[in-house]
């Protein structure tokens, strides 16, 4: 099982000091958090994609490639990649490049984005969110699997004889997760392709997650990718920890009360009882996290949100220390003991490579494989004949 963190990348005022970090500080903090996640033994770091203030991650592959160059082991992912408003051709190119630069140490999670005005800025309409996610991903899926693509759809310009470069590393397309909170169409999409399904989980009652994960598992089996309990499931989580539960509650409360998503609404106590948020001791986090399995089944990836609502970098790094030292080692052991042998791990580049019986270079050279001629040399030959 993989454990990691995901970030939204919000620039939020620290309600206890009134200080707002600069974008530069927030970008540097994101890199520091990712490096620390690897240092404390986590498996995954994922960043969101946003194109409006107060968020900084508008260019996720730039940030992830930089982090890849400064880490050795951690898997880099997204939470989420906007499959609706980002051209699938650019996603194919950007993430294939990231795959090469990180040596396969990456995957990505598709999401739609819920901010209405962002869509028209990219020439789209939020009311087409689901059809955009379906059409764009269908194209992306082909771009990574077919060297030459002829394609025509509703939302982007047609492609004739198009080759997305670079081709995926070792001929293995990056593994894809699909993230959604309540749209059954997205669970169905993930099941159809045999891709992973990630339930955001946080900010919502467990009943939403249970419904979506059950649908995905049932349809995963229907499409013949394996048994329902072998489907690839990821869950979000949100925690704040201190050695003593009361200290955690006292320190986190002002951040909770003023948080952008749920602030000035339910109390911390109501929200922790109604959603996966855990504010307390490492032991409480362990217990609550193990409880997710009861309604989501044996799952493959657990990502936590740690760095939001204006929490200072120093605090986030302390939280990572607690996760790495006291929480994740216990969870690894407990989850492994509970999981039946036939439930697989989340696919990684090495595991997909092994399943494919090894890799092959899939570079498409601008040369016809049959005649050995390229358009340029044809042109030269014609010129020579004319002479």
């Amino acid at each position, binding site marked *: 099982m993989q454990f990691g963190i995901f970030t939204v990348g919000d620039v939020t005022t620290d309600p206890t000091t009134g200080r707002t970090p600069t974008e530069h500080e927030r970008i540097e903090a994101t890199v520091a958090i990712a490096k620390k996640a690897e240092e404390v033994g986590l498996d995954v770091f994922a960043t969101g994609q946003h194109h409006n203030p107060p968020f900084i991650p508008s260019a996720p592959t730039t940030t992830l490639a930089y982090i890849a160059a400064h880490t050795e082991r951690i898997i880099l992912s997204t939470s989420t990649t906007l499959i609706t408003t980002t051209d699938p051709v650019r996603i194919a190119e950007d993430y294939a490049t990231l795959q090469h630069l990180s040596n396969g140490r990456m995957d990505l999670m598709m999401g739609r984005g819920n901010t209405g005005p962002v869509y028209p800025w990219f020439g789209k309409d939020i009311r087409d969110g689901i059809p955009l996610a379906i059409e764009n991903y269908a194209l992306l899926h082909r771009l990574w699997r077919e060297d030459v693509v002829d394609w025509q759809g509703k939302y982007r310009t047609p492609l004739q004889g198009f080759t997305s470069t670079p081709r995926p590393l070792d001929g293995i397309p990056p593994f894809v997760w699909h993230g959604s909170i309540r749209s059954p169409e997205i669970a169905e999409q993930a099941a159809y392709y045999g891709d992973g399904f990630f339930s955001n989980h946080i*900010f*919502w*009652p467990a009943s*939403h997650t249970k419904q979506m994960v059950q649908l995905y598992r049932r349809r995963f089996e229907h499409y013949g990718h394996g048994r329902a309990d072998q489907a690839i499931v990821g869950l979000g989580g949100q925690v704040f920890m201190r050695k003593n539960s009361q200290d955690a509650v006292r320190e986190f409360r002002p951040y909770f009360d003023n948080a952008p*998503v*749920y602030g*000035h*609404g*339910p109390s911390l106590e*109501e*929200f922790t009882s*109604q959603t996966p948020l855990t504010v307390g001791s490492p032991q409480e986090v362990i217990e609550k996290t193990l409880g997710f399995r009861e309604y989501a089944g044996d799952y493959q990836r657990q990502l936590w949100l740690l760095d939001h609502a204006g929490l200072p970098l120093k605090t986030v790094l302390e939280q990572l220390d607690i996760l790495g030292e006291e929480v994740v080692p216990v969870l690894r052991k407990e989850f492994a003991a509970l999981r039946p042998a036939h439930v697989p791990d989340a696919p990684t580049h090495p595991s997909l490579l092994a399943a494919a019986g090894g890799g092959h270079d899939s570079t498409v050279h601008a040369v016809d494989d049959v005649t050995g001629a390229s358009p340029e040399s044809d042109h030269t030959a014609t010129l020579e004949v004319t002479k």
Partner: protein
Amino acid sequence: MTFHIAVITAGITQPSSTRLLADRLTEATVRALGAHDVGDVVVEVVDVRDVAHDLTNNVLTGFASPDLQVRLDAIAEADAVVVATPVYAASYSGLFKMLVDVLPKDALRDTPVLLGATGGTARHSLAIDHALRPLFAHLGALVAPVAVFAASEDWGSVDAGRLGERIDRAGTAFAALISGSTRAARVDPFEDVTPFEAMLTDLRG
């Protein structure tokens, strides 16, 4: 067979004239349903005051607390709904609208709904027609033609008797609507004449 009626009441005070109107509309409906074959009638009352904070939280977070969820489920699963709201600033109350805002999509589509409203003066009585009817038309509800507005004066004057009659008429018509009758039986004033003594008794109140 069980017939479920959900009652939404948005009165704030204790006791509340809005709650009183909701209860009397419900009683009149249940009584009139006795003449139709709808089985046992179960009434579930949703008093929005009880979930005022939960409604705010739902608007902010996008999900219902367990306490609110059972109420939303009762409304969505009801065979018929009776609503009563006070009129504030020429319309239904804000708290009432918050409940409507967080109902699941299509929760009231094709559901028969009986409308009631209360206000300080009878000059607000058209609020039912210019505020509540368009709202429930948007929700796709089957809105009963007869609705009841109760002004303060209706509860304690010669008009109080007429309020009782209006409530009975609304309940009878609603019972006919929800039990599938096309219309309530017509009273023929030439066949079924009101005895003069009864007219005199009515006048004496």
